[in-house]
């Protein structure tokens, strides 16, 4: 967007540089005001364009927020491999504790925890949402004592499998559940969704660039005569392009801000029902928003895409016009 005069042979003093900087800001301010005026003169077209950009940006933004919330909800599932040893019904908690002590310090084992019958029932009541069933079952009636063995981070999958198999063959153990697979599946699913979000975001970004580019292209075409005359009277490339670039920037920023408002509106609408569902599972989970950095990325990203679209649109159309 440079519109500086051609290099002068005379050296510039400090005052000259300061005046040039002031003039530079004044030209840009003038272009920005001119762009805003131009957009305000066509309110319907401006609102429609901003609306299209906002809807486009809101889709990946909503996906990002959904993923953020899914990760937040699954934050307790840290992905550390664990083996849950369900002991025979006749193994009491003292024997379970002795077993736990014997396992502590085994190769590949990080920590060992005993979950007694009462604790297991309480956890079942809390996590399953089937408290009434638990009441019918009655305290300590059937649930076995469980020894939860957390494996060290970074244990190779083959070694983890071997440890789980060995633990399952212990005399006290009726059944061993190796909890690594589903955590891995969940993590892989999250990664897949992240990647899908990136692809969707890329496509939508491309769409925004195309929308802004074609809108700006039409504006350039509509002002063809003005551009030709401005050129004949000494208008530089920067002078001709600048108002269109500002228009693209404004489209993008406004679209990003509106998309942010749409996402927040959707969150407000969903917050109550989500809290209700979480409450049924005795969870205090609440939806989390994109945060300040997410909001900045959304609005700023919209601005960058708008600017890029405008740059490409004005460059292409000026070639046609000239």
């Amino acid at each position, binding site marked *: 967007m440079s519109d500086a005069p051609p290099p002068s042979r005379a050296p510039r003093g400090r005052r000259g540089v300061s005046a040039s900087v002031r003039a530079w800001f004044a030209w840009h301010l003038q272009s920005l005001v001119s762009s805003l005026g131009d957009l305000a003169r066509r309110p319907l077209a401006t609102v429609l364009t901003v609306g299209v950009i906002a809807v486009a940006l809101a889709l990946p933004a909503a996906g990002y927020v959904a993923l953020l919330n899914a990760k937040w909800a699954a934050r307790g599932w840290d992905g550390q491999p664990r083996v849950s040893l369900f002991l025979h019904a006749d193994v009491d908690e003292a024997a379970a504790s002795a077993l736990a002590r014997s396992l502590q310090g085994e190769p590949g084992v990080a920590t060992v925890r005993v979950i007694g019958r009462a604790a297991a029932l309480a956890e079942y009541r809390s996590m399953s949402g089937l408290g009434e069933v638990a009441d019918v079952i009655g305290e300590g009636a059937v649930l076995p004592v469980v020894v939860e063995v957390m494996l060290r981070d970074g244990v190779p999958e083959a070694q983890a499998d071997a440890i789980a198999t060995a633990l399952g063959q212990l005399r006290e153990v009726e059944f061993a559940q190796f909890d690594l697979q589903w955590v891995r599946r969940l993590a892989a699913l999250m990664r897949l969704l992240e990647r899908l979000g990136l692809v969707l975001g890329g496509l939508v970004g491309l769409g925004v660039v195309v929308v802004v580019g074609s809108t700006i292209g039409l504006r350039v075409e509509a002002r063809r005569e003005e551009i030709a005359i401005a050129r004949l009277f000494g*208008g530089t490339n920067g002078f001709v392009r600048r108002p269109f670039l500002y228009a693209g920037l404004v489209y993008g920023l406004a679209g990003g801000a509106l998309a942010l408002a749409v996402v927040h509106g959707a969150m407000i609408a969903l917050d109550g029902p989500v809290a209700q569902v979480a409450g049924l599972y005795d969870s205090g989970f609440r939806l989390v928003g994109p945060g300040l950095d997410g909001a900045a990325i959304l609005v700023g990203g919209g601005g960058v895409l708008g600017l890029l679209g405008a740059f490409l649109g004005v460059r292409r159309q000026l070639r046609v016009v000239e």
Partner: protein
Amino acid sequence: MIELLEVTKRYPGGHEALRDVSLEVESGAMAFLTGHSGAGKSTLLRLLTRVDRPSRGHVVVAGEHLNRLSERRIPYFRRRVGVVFQDHRLLMDRSVFDNVALPLVVAHHSHHEIGRRVRAALDQVGLLDKERYRPLQLSGGEQQRVGIARAVVHTPAVVLADEPTGNLDPDLSLEVMRLFERFQQVGTTVLIASHDTALIDQMGYDVLHLERGRLVGVRRPAAG
């Protein structure tokens, strides 16, 4: 000063719009360029505004060798030239003030300076009371005067006019020519392409006659 030295302009397809044209208009002088349609007048004006480049030869305007002018410097050269068109080429959705202000806006003059100069230019062409009008609210003669105000508002070294009286009646045409004459009298070099021989004779300035792309005659006014 305007100077052409053995200038030839050949368009793609082989059409030769100008052939070996050499001419000179001295600094601060006024001259007419005449010839029938297709004689090469408009092509010559396009070369003088650096819209086109000559196929051969040299063009010098206001001290700038246009053959050597880089793309980057073209806009700065054009800020020293004013152009008037037969069809005015005004922006119909802008006010008279905005139209006249354009050369000052592209050169980034301050608001204060723009206001002062535009009003001075409009005063010179007798349209000071119509600065808020849209061009469509003006007569053909008034529109042409707006075009002239726009061409001189930035005090260019050279004013080029392409058939500026083409759509005007004789009285208005003479009035417009007198305007150009006033700008020439304060040191602006003025070159006017026109085929209105009666009007040109009445004005009494140098006449450069083009025919089929060649300069076939230079007529100087009788002394005294």
